[in-house]
């Protein structure tokens, strides 16, 4: 399950936001290491900095200081264009609100991720297996408004992994789902981790959801507390 070189390696990571003349210290020196193939849950109260960590790891915002690398790629020195490149192929996102494009069908939502990454050939057999695993094979021609929350989140997972990212980032993936769908989505994430060795970092409030991970990391006031 684990590899010698960590998938995520973070040392003394700080992030400061400037709101007018006020400085907001969202991360105050985070140290974290996640091995390749590991499934880690990050939990903590609101304002603990877990979303900021998610955004930095996803290349959506640059860190202020410290070091952070994903699969050996240093995020601190990355330009905006390099972070965009990281999002194309290096990381996949699953959001609480699914974030599917409403004008596109499930298939098109997945295809656009491939298109952005510059993959235009046929999808891999492995991906077709994942679609089966996700149980959305019969719903692929529907637009998000015709899909249930659980189905939308499965499509979002399929979209997140279609380009074989090194890291799958999930931000409260069960936050909008009922308990039955929550469990189904969490099982899917665990399956992806176990069957494909997909490294997953999941942000969650929910202790039950966190229990699906190999390891739970708790955050408070911009630091990891255990």
């Amino acid at each position, binding site marked *: 399950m684990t590899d010698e070189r960590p998938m995520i390696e973070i040392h003394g990571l700080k992030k400061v936001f400037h709101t007018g003349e006020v400085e907001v210290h969202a991360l105050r020196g985070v140290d974290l290491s996640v091995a390749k193939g590991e499934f880690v849950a990050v939990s903590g109260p609101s304002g603990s900095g877990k979303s900021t960590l998610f955004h930095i790891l996803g290349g*959506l915002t640059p860190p202020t200081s410290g070091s952070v690398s994903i699969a050996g790629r240093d995020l601190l020195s990355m330009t905006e*264009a390099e972070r965009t490149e990281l*999002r194309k192929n290096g990381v996949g996102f699953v959001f609480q609100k699914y974030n599917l494009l409403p004008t596109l069908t499930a298939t098109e939502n997945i295809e656009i991720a491939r298109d952005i990454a510059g993959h235009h050939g046929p999808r891999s057999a492995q991906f077709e297996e994942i679609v089966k695993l996700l149980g959305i094979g019969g719903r692929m021609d529907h637009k998000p408004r015709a899909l249930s929350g659980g189905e939308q989140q499965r499509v979002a997972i399929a979209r997140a992994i279609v380009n074989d990212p090194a890291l799958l980032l999930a931000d409260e993936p069960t936050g909008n789902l009922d308990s039955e769908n929550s469990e189904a989505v969490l099982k899917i994430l665990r399956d992806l981790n176990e069957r494909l060795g997909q490294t997953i970092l999941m942000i969650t409030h929910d202790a039950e959801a966190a229990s699906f991970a190999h390891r739970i990391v708790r955050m408070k006031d911009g630091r990891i507390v255990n």
Partner: protein
Amino acid sequence: MVWENLKHRPVRTFLSAIFIGISVTLILTMVGLSRGVLDDVRERARGSGADIVIRPPNSTVLAFSGNMPHGEKIVDLVRQRPHVTVATGVLIESIGNFQSITGINLDEFNAMSGGFHYLEGGPFQRPDDLMVDESYADSKNLHAGSSLDLGNGQVWHICAVVEPGKLSQLIAQRNRLQDLYSATGEVSVIYVKVDQKTNVPSVLDDLMNLLDGYPIYTIEQLANMISVDNISLVKGFTRVVIGIAVVVGFLVVLLTMYTAVLERTREIGILKALGASPGYILGILMRESILLAVCGSIAGIVMTYGSQFLVHKFAPPFLRQAIVPDWWPYASGISMIGAVLGAIYPGLKAARQDAIEALSYD
């Protein structure tokens, strides 16, 4: 995705396409009117059957009015020149609204042109007789026997409705028109027919020597001069309309795309999270704008047929709108330029959006 985005807001897409279409229609109607009117003038000049045209000094291509004070004497002089078989003077008087009435000597004109084709009625019988062509009669609902007040101090009696394409839409007897406008002995244009086409150049030279300072052309030279390129006023109008069309296209697309970008803030955030570059996002909006412009151009071309119908139905009878397919690509290209310009600002705004802020937008 581009088409799906446009389909997602069908009313807005439809209205935007129609507004872009209006600018396309504006261009095509302007060009069509210029060409329609000039083609008509050219056709009527050729319909005279003349080989050579003599016009008053200082007259312009389209301005036939302005008379030769001793025109009839000049006609007599021209008639005596070698190889001239027929020479006839016509008097053209403006009746306002860019329209004119033409006075002819029917016998001379028949000898030159082969005569009118009467659809209703027949030749002049009374001094107040007026022939109208079919398009004028249609637009004013006139028939042989109808009366027509042109506001020039004479209520005319329609003696005939004739086939269009000869000189003018309104044709009276020259001497009656000369009396009415105190222009005894005057003519506006002299039409000359030559015995053989091969003699036209020599007769032209002869007449130019005879009538120094008078613009004298072969009918083909005149027809070639009656084109948009040679009439600076029409060229100027066309350029102004093209400018307006670019601005309209620009504003419509700017507004549409700006609204679309605001509305799709979250979707742009999603695309950015998926790794879409600013160029990719700009490209989507550009393609949407171009697709809108294509739809608008098609709508504009179709609407041109509507404007042609309206011009025929409600505009003054001398106005004719031609359908100008050779201008369709230009008009579409112009709307495309407006659309692309209009998409630049919203596109850049979208491309520069912060992904995290965009994703938290509801």
